[in-house]
């Protein structure tokens, strides 16, 4: 009888112990993965803070004996891309000049498209939407030649405006998809009520839809900014000396050095090129997750 009672109790206790052990095992596993993923960043940061001398003699994973920011300075304003030695600085501004208007315009047009497709249905709306979706999945390599022709005909070849144009066009598929999916969850009766109240197409968009859109705007901006900032293919194809984005400049710095490879400068340059997207994720990351999962709007 006592056996009968105490047995399940013991079982319960051992079950609890297994549970705790499993939890710790899981945490340990996650920790290992986190370290594994952080490793390259660690090597980049430490290498960028070392002198060339130290890199040659020391170990790859060792902390710098003497911290120096010389490599960062060189990367920012002194490193050579081919024959010019101005560092990343001018290209950093190029990328800003491309990314900011391109993100703004593609988000705005995406919102407008999504609004129309979700709430101002017209004949063929679904077909146009599917075609835009299709645009999301076309590999960019396919469009390089035709796009080069188009840019040439428009007189935008090799210019910052040309790159903005390309990024806006190829961003529209995704931005439209994001906004359309967000806006279909907004009840159509809101549009009807606003129509009866006398509001027109733009008024409804501006006064009712945009104020509701913050979560999806954050998602779209992060997505577009990352895409455009990190783009290399369009940047290298449609730019010329003086209009190259930072990704192209980074490539040139790393690949066009002569003599000793300056790993510390390369690492610093790579980090500089990645910082803005990192910054955007840190600042707006929590809205990103929230925006992706946000659905219905409760009136």
């Amino acid at each position, binding site marked *: 009888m006592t056996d009968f009672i105490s047995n399940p109790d013991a079982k319960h206790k051992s079950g609890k112990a297994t549970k705790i052990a499993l939890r710790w095992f899981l945490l340990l596993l996650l920790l290992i993965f986190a370290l594994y993923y952080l490793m390259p960043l660690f090597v980049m940061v430490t290498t960028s803070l070392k002198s060339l001398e130290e890199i040659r003699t020391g170990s790859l994973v060792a902390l710098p004996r003497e911290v120096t920011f010389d490599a960062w300075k060189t990367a920012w304003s002194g490193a050579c891309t081919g024959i010019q030695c101005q560092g990343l600085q001018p290209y950093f501004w190029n990328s800003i000049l491309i990314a900011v208007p391109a993100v703004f315009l593609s988000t705005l047009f995406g919102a407008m498209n999504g609004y129309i497709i979700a709430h101002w249905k017209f004949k063929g709306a679904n077909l146009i939407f599917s075609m835009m979706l299709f645009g999301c999945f076309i590999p960019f390599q396919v469009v390089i030649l035709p796009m080069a022709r188009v840019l040439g005909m428009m007189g935008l070849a090799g210019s910052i405006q040309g790159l903005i144009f390309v990024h806006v066009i190829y961003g529209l598929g995704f931005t439209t998809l994001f906004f359309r999916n967000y806006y279909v969850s907004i009840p159509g009766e809101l549009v009807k009520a606003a129509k*009866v109240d006398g509001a027109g197409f733009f008024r409804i968009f501006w006064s009712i839809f945009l104020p509701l859109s913050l979560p999806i705007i954050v998602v779209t901006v992060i997505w577009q900014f990352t895409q455009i900032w990190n783009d290399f293919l369009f940047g290298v194809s449609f730019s010329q000396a003086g209009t190259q984005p930072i990704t192209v400049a980074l490539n040139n710095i790393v690949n066009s050095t002569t003599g000793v490879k300056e790993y510390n400068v390369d690492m610093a340059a790579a980090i500089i090129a990645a910082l803005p997207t990192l910054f955007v994720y840190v600042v707006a990351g929590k809205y990103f997750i929230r925006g992706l999962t946000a659905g219905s709007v409760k009136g």
Partner: protein
Amino acid sequence: MSPILKVKNLVKNFGSTEVLKDINISIESGDFLVLVGPSGCGKSTLLNCIAGLEPISAGEVFIDGRNMTDVSPKDRDIAMVFQSYALYPTMSVAKNITFGMKVRGVDTETQKRKLAEVARQLQIEPELNRRPGQLSGGQRQRVAMGRALVRDPKLFLFDEPLSNLDAKLRVEMRTEIKRLHHDLGASMVYVTHDQIEAMTLATTIVVMKSGVIQQIGTPAEIYGRPQNLFVADFMGSPAMNLIKAKATKNGAGTKIEISRENSAPLILTDTQNTNLPENVILGLRPEDIAEASMRSGPQVQTATCLVDIVEPAGADTYVMSKLGGKEVTARLHAETGAQPGQLLEFAFDLGKVSYFEPETGQRLN
């Protein structure tokens, strides 16, 4: 004076499906028109057509004598209350109510005055600075009404405004809408699937089914003299008893014979309706069947029937008996001593009877 709303030969198609077929409606100023029918009957579509939110395929819509067929919703001088309330989620209650005036460029003084007026009328003054998300269902409903009221329109349109409320609140708001209609003397069109709402609110009821108007009339007409089997069955709760019967001429009157299981047929004599075909469906409301001792009158006929089921419902007790192959409900007073299995003498008030053609479902008397 021209009717406040006139719908003439309205047709609405979605693709190749005909949703509304040749709709004709006309109401006078101050009328409360209720469109009622089961879901999918086209009543909400019709309301949207009147509002101009759905283009119509054929026909015309007049509001206060003006042809509004091709006029946009904002210029039709209407206000609308929606089922989901459709309050603008990012705006405060006050801004929700004044949005329409702001869009139309009404000066701020007038906006403030009208807002205060409506807020007092609907008792939502403490809520003016809150967002719709912070309000209860009833409060949202009031705000939605407020948004319509500030407009001071020729025609109010309501699209199932009470169906998202719980039962108790629904009855309260129903009374409030009725009071509002009475106080304002406004003309209203109201869509509902709830026949009790239709009966309590309307001055005119339009019963619809599959895009076709079944009957237009006052609540009393719709309830007392339904034009076909659908209306008879749809309006009223519990529903009208519709019993298969055989009619034969019998001197000055008509002999009505209703078959019963395991006993002789029930025979009634109708002295008013003489020109009936052989097969009819006899319609009697539950309240027109009572205990023999409780009802008398020139058209009242009594017969003994077997009590099947007894359902006390508080104010009344419903008693069922099997007639013509169907359970027939009688509405008895609460203190009735009727027991299942008992033989009870019922009074059938043939003064209130309806007859229908079994094939077409049309009314015969």
